[in-house]
């Protein structure tokens, strides 16, 4: 893409005309599209009579893609607001930290799609007679797939800010607002942008799943590219499906070029290392912006208002005198706080267990445990297969810089492409060739999850230092011993990162891959995912609670028992 466009220098020279024109026209076009597409969110909605329908005419696809994209960006904005607030409070307050961080850990493990039943009913009740309720439910599903990661990333940067910078802002008595703007947000920007970009890619999956769902015996359709696919599936319309896949791919590439690349290129200036980076990320849109005078003009117009805002916020958050607390008092307060927490948590767990025991009984619980084990087995098989297939390929790509440059973006694209767009093709194949869905669902789950293994392996192999590779060549390390001594240790940390992400993705995907339909045929695998999907469709609250809770328990347990250990090993032994 970059080669076709004029190089940076020549863009710079167009000081006046073209770049300014491009920026202004581009901005106007985006505003117009938002206005047109956004208006659709406010139409009336009074089920069961007045519900929006989706037309399978491919010419409507750009509009549907626009509606879906708008949802994605609203969710992204909400995730950023949540991240700053949650991460800041967790990092600043010792007391809040002890509740918020474990809570985040649990929220990360709760299957996003399991939430839907609760949120859809809640939001529809919140906006009676308007489609906004469904919009919010869909946005919330995307939000829950992004926000926890991002908040955690922000919190961790705040906890590991360089000590000298913290002291400098303290000794120059920066008010809390200025410290936030000048130090805390910039320092976390790169991590946050990467995290947001990855989560945004994963968000398409949840968008597609949340636009057309059956909750509490009621089918809801929200116009968008996801519901278009759902409509095409029930109409068994292959052509429409093909167009949807194409539109989706085009949308992902467009958003990458117009939004993520410029943002990544811009965020590079927030690098904490004081020396220049070897290879700065490039973006033609960002270059266009920088060579235009429009941003400067806006900054000039905005600056008096900006100054006033800074002044106002700064005077509210000025440095306050130190409070010196008696350590004995602090200890007592601490113990009281801890005791209160234990009582509350124990109470909540007790309530949950009581609810499940009195409504579904013990037999049901043991059945759900078995179903969880079936899904766990699928996730394990998937990870093993994906590792066996993709690790060698990833290593070959990663060790070759030219291949890495070419194929790494492709792997990233595959990871963001919502796998549920491919499900109908796979389902049709299963029906035609009589594949048992109990095994087939593994393939469906892998369609999304495997890419995380691939691109993390590529990144890991690419980061093996050249001198080590040369050493291995020099002493003639070949074949299996080369893998054992150089490659496996070199990619181990990256593989663990990829594995954690893939496993999380697979658990979430199980809710939509253990039960798939084509026209009137529905294939159901025995597993925790199909159990939750079934309970959600029927509106069976005790079984929803039980299923979602059980999946969270499984995910947390696997993380604690398996991934944490591997992660610690990677940090300690294989850290390059």
């Amino acid at each position, binding site marked *: 893409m970059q080669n076709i466009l004029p190089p940076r220098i020549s863009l710079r020279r167009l000081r006046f005309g073209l770049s300014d024109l491009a920026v202004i026209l581009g901005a106007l076009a985006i505003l117009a599209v938002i206005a047109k597409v956004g208006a659709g969110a406010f139409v009336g909605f009074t089920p069961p009579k007045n519900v929006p329908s989706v037309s399978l005419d491919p010419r409507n696809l750009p509009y549907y893609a626009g509606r879906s994209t708008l949802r994605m960006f609203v969710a992204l904005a909400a995730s950023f607001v949540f991240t700053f607030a949650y991460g800041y409070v967790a990092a600043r307050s010792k007391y809040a930290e002890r509740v918020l961080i474990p809570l985040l850990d649990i929220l990360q493990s709760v299957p996003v799609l399991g939430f839907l039943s609760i949120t859809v009913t809640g939001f529809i009740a919140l906006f009676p007679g308007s489609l906004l309720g469904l919009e919010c439910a869909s946005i919330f599903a995307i939000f829950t797939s992004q926000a926890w990661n991002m908040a955690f990333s922000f919190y961790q940067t705040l906890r590991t800010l*360089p000590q*000298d*910078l913290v*002291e*400098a*802002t*303290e*000794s*120059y*008595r*920066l*008010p809390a607002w*200025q410290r936030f703007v*000048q*130090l805390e947000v*910039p320092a976390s920007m790169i991590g946050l942008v990467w995290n947001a970009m990855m989560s945004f890619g994963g968000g398409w999956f949840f968008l597609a799943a949340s636009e057309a769902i059956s909750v509490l015996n009621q089918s809801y359709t929200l116009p968008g590219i996801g519901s278009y696919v759902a409509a095409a599936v029930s109409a068994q319309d292959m052509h429409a499906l093909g167009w949807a896949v194409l539109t989706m791919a085009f949308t992902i590439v467009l958003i990458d070029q117009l939004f993520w690349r410029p943002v990544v290129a811009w965020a590079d*200036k*927030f*690098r*904490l*290392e*004081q*020396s*220049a980076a070897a290879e700065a990320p490039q973006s033609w849109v960002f270059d266009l912006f920088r060579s235009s005078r429009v941003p400067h003009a806006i900054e000039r117009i905005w*600056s008096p208002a900006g*100054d006033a805002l*800074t*002044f106002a916020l*700064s*005077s509210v958050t000025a*440095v*306050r*005198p*130190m409070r*010196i607390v008696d*350590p004995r008092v602090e*200890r007592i307060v601490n113990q009281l706080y801890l005791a209160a927490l234990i009582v509350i948590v124990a109470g909540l767990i007790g309530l949950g267990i009581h609810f499940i025991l009195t409504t579904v009984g013990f037999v049901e619980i043991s059945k759900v445990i078995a179903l969880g084990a079936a899904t766990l087995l699928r996730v394990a098989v998937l990870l093993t297969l994906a590792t066996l297939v993709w690790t060698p390929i990833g290593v070959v790509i990663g060790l070759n810089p030219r291949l890495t440059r070419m194929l790494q973006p492709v792997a990233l694209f595959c990871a963001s492409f919502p796998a549920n767009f491919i499900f109908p093709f796979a389902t049709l194949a299963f029906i035609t060739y009589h594949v048992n869905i109990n095994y087939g669902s593994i393939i469906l789950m892998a369609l999304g999850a495997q890419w995380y293994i691939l691109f993390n392996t590529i990144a890991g192999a690419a980061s093996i230092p050249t001198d080590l590779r040369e050493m291995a060549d020099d002493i003639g390390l070949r074949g299996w011993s080369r893998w054992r001594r150089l490659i496996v240790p070199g990619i181990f940390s990256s593989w663990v990162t990829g594995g954690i992400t893939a496993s999380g993705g697979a658990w979430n995907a199980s809710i939509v891959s253990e039960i798939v339909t084509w026209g009137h045929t529905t294939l159901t695998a025995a597993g925790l995912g199909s159990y939750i999907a079934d309970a959600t469709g029927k509106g069976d609250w005790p079984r929803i609670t039980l299923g979602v809770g059980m999946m969270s328990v499984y995910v947390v347990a696997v993380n604690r028992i398996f991934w944490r250990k591997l992660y610690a090993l990677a940090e*300690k*032994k294989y850290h390059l």
Partner: protein
Amino acid sequence: MSAQGLVEVESCCKSFPHPEGKSEFTVLDNISVSVEPGEVVALLGRSGSGKSTLLRIMAGLIPASSGKVFSDGKPLTGPNPDVAMVFQSFALLPWLTVIENVEVGLEAHGVGRMERTKRALKAIDLVGLDGFESAYPKELSGGMKQRVGFARALVVEPKVLFLDEPFSALDVLTAENLRGEIDDLWNAGTFPAKSILLVTHNIEEAVFLADRIIVLGTNPGRIRGEVKVDLPRPHDRTRPEFKELVEHLYAIMTNPTMNIEVVPAHASQVPQRKPSRSPYAEPLPHVRVGTISGLLELLVEHDRDRHEIARVAERLSLPIDDLLPILDAAGLLGFAIVADGIVHVSDVGRDFATTTILRSKELFRHQVLEHVPLVATMSKTLREKQNGSMRADFFLDLLDEYYPADEARRQFATAVDWGRYAELFEYDAAEELLTISDAAHSAL
């Protein structure tokens, strides 16, 4: 103590609690310091003397455990508004340009945009960074970064300029150049601050810049006394008085019990270090065995018996903070005798530095078992165990009684390094397991 000090601390102590809350670790013990208008004061001390902690207490960045801190006569309750700090690591915000970095302090005080730019440009001009206003820190060399650090501090016109080892992250020539320029600015009489408080471990730097040097002792940090630099400014390095002062300070620094003539009121009650019985309470200097042997080799090569430490430091261009621990280690192991600014290599030391690697390991093992109680005890403990192995936690717990957690880890790491070199034991870092070595088994 006089009331007109710009920044004062009175009988200040600072201790950090142990993580498990069993006891406390004292970093500063009964310190009183006052910075008067128009003077340059240096806090000189080795690492572990708490000099940076003292500076941060006076800057209001961390609270004192007891005692009082005054700024301009008023008790301090937060970051000190009368001082500005220059950091060892520059502490520039990498996403701001030079001028934006300089303006940060002014913006914090609500100075308007126009005024901010005007004052920032003046400060940048003052430190000689004209033309770099819109550069980012990553485009600048270390020396230029620190110039930005000085400009950021001077632009707020603080009453006292705090310098936290501002030249120690720079290479020798750059440091020399910048130090000279700051001194010129001060001597010109138009310096934007009334006084300077400098923290350093560089003796020459202290004598060159300061009018008064306060020497801090270690374990715990306390004032040993002060040395006046009664020389016309700028202090001329070639004058014999300058050299005498430097050598005098080297003698003080290498001899922890030596008395310093001019002693301020509070320092008279300096607590004597109690002789400690536990082998875990005697700190090891954090030095690798190879470094000790390297220094001894260099000393032995020169056909002299006694070496002035000031000369050795100069010849190796090693800062005193790096050199002293090596000498401490050599002294502790009986390879050298260090006193009054003079180092003398012992016969064992000479042998150790010149013999083959196997023989030197044997000598080292002998000296360690004889003179280093910590390593000797660890080796003994391992030998008494049936399976000859022990978890690291066991020793770390014992060390935790006497040191803060980080220092306990470092003590353990140094002991392991020495013990491994002496082939007394082996250490599996992944399992955190110490095992008696076979060589030690057969040799003992």
